[in-house]
């Protein structure tokens, strides 16, 4: 495929072009705003050699490409969220040209306006809870085979260890639930993402909770204090907060 298309990043309240000066999007192309009926859509031009249906399909399988593109997309959405209320669109939302982008904006307009109203003055925060192995094995258990008097005793101890571990995992699930609900009370909305796999998160412990909260900026201190209080009851680094994020987890205007 040859030619170019228009890549859509986010729907926002009208943004002055000056606020977008120097902002670059996917493929390092400058970002501009197109507007319809009191809304703006941040867009940039993309090459169909990379973003046409077939090349896009292949590119999305290239994790290097995917990461680069996702980060460039995120950079633009973040920059927009710094200056105005922003509804992020999905990665690789592409229209044939600016006119088609405006049609799309008009189509999503009334839904987007309602979502923007809900998002005004609010940011997304991420909270993750990681597992901690709190019942460390005793010295006798650690001593292992050499300390065993018989195979039967060994098997019994192993069974006890397993039972303890299962009980711990139950406790961890309840703990995650409690944390989620506790913080939900301080947020406008809450959402649970899937816990990230350790190999992807790079964390040393399993993730028990991967939550996102939409929080009033005026109540952020309260929210952060609540997180700190909950973190205080736990071993260091078992709770990780990220944010503020653009409201990715709470701003859906497109059909699934």
């Amino acid at each position, binding site marked *: 495929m040859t030619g170019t*298309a228009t890549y859509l990043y986010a729907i926002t309240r009208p943004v002055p072009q000056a606020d977008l000066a120097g902002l670059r999007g996917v493929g390092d192309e400058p970002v501009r705003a197109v507007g319809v009926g009191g809304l703006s859509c941040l867009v940039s031009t993309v090459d169909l050699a990379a*973003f046409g*249906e077939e090349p*896009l*399909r292949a590119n*999305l*399988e290239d*994790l290097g490409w*995917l*990461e680069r593109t*996702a*980060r460039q*997309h*995120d950079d633009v*959405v973040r920059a927009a*969220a*710094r*200056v105005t*209320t922003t509804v*992020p669109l*999905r*990665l*690789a*939302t*592409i*229209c*044939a*040209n600016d006119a*088609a982008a405006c*049609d799309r904006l008009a189509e999503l307009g009334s839904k987007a306006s309602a979502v923007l109203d809900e998002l005004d*003055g609010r*940011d997304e925060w991420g909270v993750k809870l990681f*597992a901690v192995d709190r019942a460390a094995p005793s010295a006798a258990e650690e001593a292992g*085979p050499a300390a065993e008097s018989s*195979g039967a005793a*060994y*098997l019994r101890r*192993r069974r006890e*260890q*397993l039972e303890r*571990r*299962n009980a711990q*995992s139950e406790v961890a699930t309840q703990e995650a639930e409690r944390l989620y609900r506790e913080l939900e009370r301080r947020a406008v909305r809450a959402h649970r*993402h*899937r*816990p*990230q*796999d350790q*190999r*992807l998160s790079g964390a040393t412990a*399993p993730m*028990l909770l*991967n939550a996102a909260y939409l929080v009033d900026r005026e109540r952020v201190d309260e929210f952060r204090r609540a997180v700190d209080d909950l973190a205080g009851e736990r071993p260091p680094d078992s709770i990780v907060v*990220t944010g*503020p*994020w653009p409201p*990715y*987890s709470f701003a*859906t205007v497109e059909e*699934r």
Partner: protein
Amino acid sequence: MTGLPSREEAASLADVLERVLDKGLVIAGDIRVNLLDIELLTIKIRLLVASVDKAREMGIDWWEHDPTLSVGQRDLADENRALRSRVAELESATQASKKAKA
């Protein structure tokens, strides 16, 4: 300016992907072209990586289990394996000592 405070650290790739790809970490791609309106290319991604094979290559396979359960199950499987090999060791040690006595 609403002035978001700056982040202390760069967002992790996993954090960014699960957000920009919409609704959690996902598994296989579903690119949709609206044939009625060829002007619009819409991408609908339900899964993190465009192919399951690619995901497996990265070592991401947890969709095959309930993530909250799979950790425990993996542990159990490891424990069972360790247990079985320990039993085998004990058995062969017992055999050896019987032979020595005989």
